């Protein structure tokens, strides 16, 4: 599947879903409505970008959810009460992510196992920080997340900014190209004289950075934290990356698609809620939407291959 089609499908699925939601609930078609629909998708989009950084280097991160929860707990406690210490802890956690990336590469460990282990570490730290739900969001992040820009709601602006910046970073910069190359063919990168360890650590650090942003934004929306607040982000973020045109084979990712994928997943929940579907069916229906989109993508990519074949022949 080439780049052109990769971005087409997430755009299409989001448009279809958005049209369905507007049809079911015309009230959503407003500044206020769009913000309510999408503001909780902003941290999901950031977590999806974090996951994308890992999938990009051919790994998978099962600790995104607990990491975001941990960051949320730090944000609602230290970042609020002792900002300097809070920032230090968050920086340290990004470094920890980088270290995990380096370790995974140096020892050739399976990322899925290491990150699964780390998910218990982050989860444990989160419970230690906030044994019972509570804490308070720092006023500045609350202001940022509830800001009402003219014409377009904050959630939409934030998603456009996130998608734009990560697109520049991953698709347009030389560092981004190198990082994608690590996922595509690490040996080739190593032979051309780059340190794969450093690059992998860098990708993990980026994941940590976006994970931190996700946690901070989440607390800005919820006003306080809970050690289990973002557990579902792990699966949502993986689904978002894939829905957005990314592939598990590494190197093939799309930041814009990932953001769109996250929005689609968030919207799917609202859509099912507006449909008044019984909760017993909701998980299944969410899964069905995912399978549907992926099936369409398979058809797209088959077609793409056929066309390419025809050109070559």
């Amino acid at each position, binding site marked *: 599947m080439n780049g052109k089609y990769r971005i087409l499908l997430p755009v299409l699925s989001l448009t279809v879903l958005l049209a369905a939601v507007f049809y079911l*609930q015309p*009230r*959503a078609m407003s500044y206020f*409505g769009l913000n*309510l*629909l999408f*503001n*909780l998708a902003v*941290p*999901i989009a950031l977590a999806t970008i974090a996951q994308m950084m890992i999938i990009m280097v051919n790994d998978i991160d099962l600790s995104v959810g607990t990491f975001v929860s941990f960051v949320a707990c730090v944000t609602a406690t230290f970042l609020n009460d002792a900002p300097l210490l809070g920032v230090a802890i968050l920086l340290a956690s990004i470094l920890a992510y980088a270290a995990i990336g380096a370790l995974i590469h140096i020892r050739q460990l399976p990322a899925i196992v290491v990150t699964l282990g780390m998910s218990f570490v982050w989860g444990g730290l989160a*419970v230690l920080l906030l*044994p*019972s*739900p*509570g*804490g308070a969001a720092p006023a500045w992040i609350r202001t940022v997340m509830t800001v009402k820009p003219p014409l377009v709601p904050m959630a939409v602006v934030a998603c456009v900014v996130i998608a734009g910046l990560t697109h520049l970073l991953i698709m347009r910069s030389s560092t981004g190209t190198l990082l994608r190359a690590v996922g595509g063919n690490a040996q080739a990168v190593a032979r051309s004289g780059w340190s794969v360890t450093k690059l992998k650590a860098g990708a993990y650090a980026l994941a940590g950075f976006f994970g931190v942003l996700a946690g901070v934004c*989440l607390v*800005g*929306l*919820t*006003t*306080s*934290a*809970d*050690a*289990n*607040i*973002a*557990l*579902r*982000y792990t699966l949502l973020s993986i689904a978002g990356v894939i829905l957005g045109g990314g592939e598990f084979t590494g190197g093939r990712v799309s930041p814009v698609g990932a953001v769109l994928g996250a929005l689609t997943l*968030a919207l799917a*929940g*609202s859509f099912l*809620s*507006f449909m*008044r579907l019984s*909760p*017993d069916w*909701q*998980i299944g229906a*969410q899964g069905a939407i995912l399978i549907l989109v992926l099936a369409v993508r398979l058809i797209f990519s088959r077609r793409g291959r056929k066309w390419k074949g025809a050109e070559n022949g």
Partner: protein
Amino acid sequence: MNTKAKLLGAVALVAVALPGHAVADTADKRIALSNNYAGNSWRQAMLESWAKVGDKAVEDGVVAAADAFTTSENQATEQAAQIQNMILQGYDAIVVNAASPTALNGAIKEACDAGIIVVSFDGIVTEPCAWRIAVDFKEMGRQQVEYLAGHLPDGGNLLEIRGLAGVFVDDEIHAGIEQGVAEFPKFKIVGSVHGDWAQDVAQKAVAGVLPSLPEIVGVVTQGGDGYGAAQAIKAAGRDMPIIVMGNRQDEMKWWAEARDENGYETLSLSIAPGVGTLAFWVAQQVLDGAQVPKDLTVPFLKVTQDTLDETLAATPAGSVANVEYSQEDAKSVIAAAN
């Protein structure tokens, strides 16, 4: 009002029409239930009660809608999105059983700012703009020890079965039990296991800890674990201590059988899943313009030796003792808090 009267009242409510029929002010108001979890018998009974009372209220023209929504993954962020969807759907009041006391606050503030009445119950929220119908879980723990003190004047060793670690309800009931033991120092907790509010988990946990325990005279529990504890103790061939039950049908059935066999006496207490209907009526009262304090307390449902038979008969197999609240009950709870 005692339990008997309440159960009778619930029966009367179903049999006859609602008392105080002439409510027109809320006839065009829509109330939604935001529920985070439906995967156990308590929540199923809660949803059934809500549907029963809500449908009746809609039929009688008290409110225009009483829709129930349940999130599929029991996650706070998912429920926050659900509440934001309800704002979009234009509900006038949202009744919440929250996945987290704090993580929904942002969404709930959005709802309040949009002029929506938010009433939380069972899983309550800390956002000041919402109403809270709380259960005094601590008192629930304390009363268990008090009951045991009344029945075992000599005191003795107790086994404590706790709920799911890290959940607020577990901490509260545990604190209440500790308070009770401090109040009646002739009792001593010699063992503590986590039964996770599930009979099979409790049975395994109790069976595992029993061999290391001295003679125990009582088991303090959190509900959903009494039957499992009884099975484990029976299997170990020990004398049956007084196991405080938690209103589950299997627990009450076991209790009734033991009573018929050897005059076994105990106490059973838990919150009635029908507390959701109390929250419904409180929301309706607020919409109606009643002055309602933000913090209300709901009494827990106690089953005693005297009420065992009728409660057991009224509880379907696999379910939990329940009572549906009426508008009058809501008014009296509000009056008591004012």
